[in-house]
């Protein structure tokens, strides 16, 4: 009964499109996460109140489950596609050179930057979301002092370095990934292509540099 549907979902093109849609949704997530994080620059109260408002909403569990599902789909389909791609050429070339007119550094390192980001996400959640629970209160409302934890966390130079490396990998991943999702979905038009590639580069740059600025700020804020 579902075999026809499954065949479509398992086709090369729908797998690419699934990967692309999940990727674009994740782009939406990191954009919101980045904007929220900018409140660290404003101060402890703004950041803690934002975090409290976000996590005290009961819908957060549904949102987190949805986000996890999107992550797993993006990773799962990505792994499947990569395995299939390796199998498609069992005997490798003695010599293979890029033409210099097609692939770029970003496009040829997608699986590697992806793995770096995955490792980072796991460490990031363990270290911050499930990190030490400090408490504070504003106007009598008790809440988690996430700001204190963030400042403390990024007092270690290794945490700052790891974060920056991961965010540069994210930028490299997005440079190709953002544009690529549109191509997979069938959006490729001579009039808009250059604009889309420019947006892709700008988004990658803003995310990499923007996110990286946060731990560096915290590092100096923490008294180093």
């Amino acid at each position: 009964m579902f075999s026809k549907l499954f065949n479509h979902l398992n086709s090369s093109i729908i797998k690419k499109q699934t990967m692309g849609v999940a990727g674009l949704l994740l782009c939406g997530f990191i954009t919101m996460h980045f904007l929220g994080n900018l409140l660290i620059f404003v101060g402890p109260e703004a950041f803690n109140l934002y975090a409290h408002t976000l996590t005290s909403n009961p819908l957060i569990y549904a949102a987190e489950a949805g986000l996890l599902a999107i992550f797993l789909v993006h990773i799962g389909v990505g792994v499947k596609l990569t395995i299939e791609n390796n199998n498609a050429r069992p005997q490798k070339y003695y010599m293979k050179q890029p033409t210099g007119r097609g692939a770029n550094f970003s496009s040829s390192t997608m699986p590697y930057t992806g793995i770096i980001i995955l490792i980072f996400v796991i460490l990031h959640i363990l270290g911050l979301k499930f990190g030490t629970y400090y408490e504070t209160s504003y106007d009598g409302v008790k809440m988690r002092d996430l700001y204190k934890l963030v400042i403390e966390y990024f007092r270690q130079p290794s945490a700052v370095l790891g974060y920056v490396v991961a965010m540069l990998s994210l930028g490299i991943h997005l440079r190709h990934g953002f544009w690529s999702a549109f191509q997979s979905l069938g959006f490729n038009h001579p009039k808009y292509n250059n604009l889309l590639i420019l947006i892709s580069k700008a988004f990658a740059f803003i995310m990499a540099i923007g996110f990286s600025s946060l731990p560096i700020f915290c590092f100096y804020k923490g008294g180093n």
Partner: protein
Amino acid sequence: MGDQSKLMSLNLKIWRQPNSGSQGEMIDYKLDGISPDMSFLEMLDVLNEELVQEGKDSIAYDHDCREGICGMCSLMINGQAHGPEASTTTCQLHMRKFKDGDTIVIEPWRAKAFPVLKDLMVDRGSFDAIISAGGYVNCNTGNAPDGNAIPIPKESADLAMDAAACIGCGACVASCKNASAMLFVSAKISQLALLPQGKPEAQKRAESMVTKMDELGFGNCTNEAECEASCPKGIKIENIARMNREYLSSALKSK
């Protein structure tokens, strides 16, 4: 003969494999007296003549028209499909693009769906299988309809013609790090989908051809455009986007 002082000496590293079932290996050859005006295939002909005179097995490679339009010649030359020049088939590549004393590495296309038959020759029958799966327009009754009976916008005709320039050589598969055939399949889908005669079957065609392509063990496109860069006919990856649209539409609507 041309200017003798310009003749080139080359070191060649060529893949030799007696048949599809055997293990192959890279073999070194030294070749002298090559004119820069020779085509790449003529250079191989000279080597083969020498091998035959020595009583050795000549090197098998595919070729036919030697005019850059039939799609028979192939060869990975120094790690690039059809060699270093853009928009050029191996038969149209000339030895003047190389220097005296150069080492040139020559390999067959490599893909699971393109098994090596002998030396530098691969079986590209999987492309034929994809075409048989739907790369045509059905005309079930009567004579072929008059092509000029239906008005076609110049722009559509041009785009269809650009897609139809694909000669099916397989350089897209060879140069793709994933051995994906999507540039070829998308060109064949586009050349028909862009014209009114091909429109009625466009989605069904995309579905059957993509299904066959997946079945044959080609890889998945990662949108790097190495295929476009190495295509001797300059087929654009816009065609892949068109195929993605046609397939998605078919997957959503088909019963």
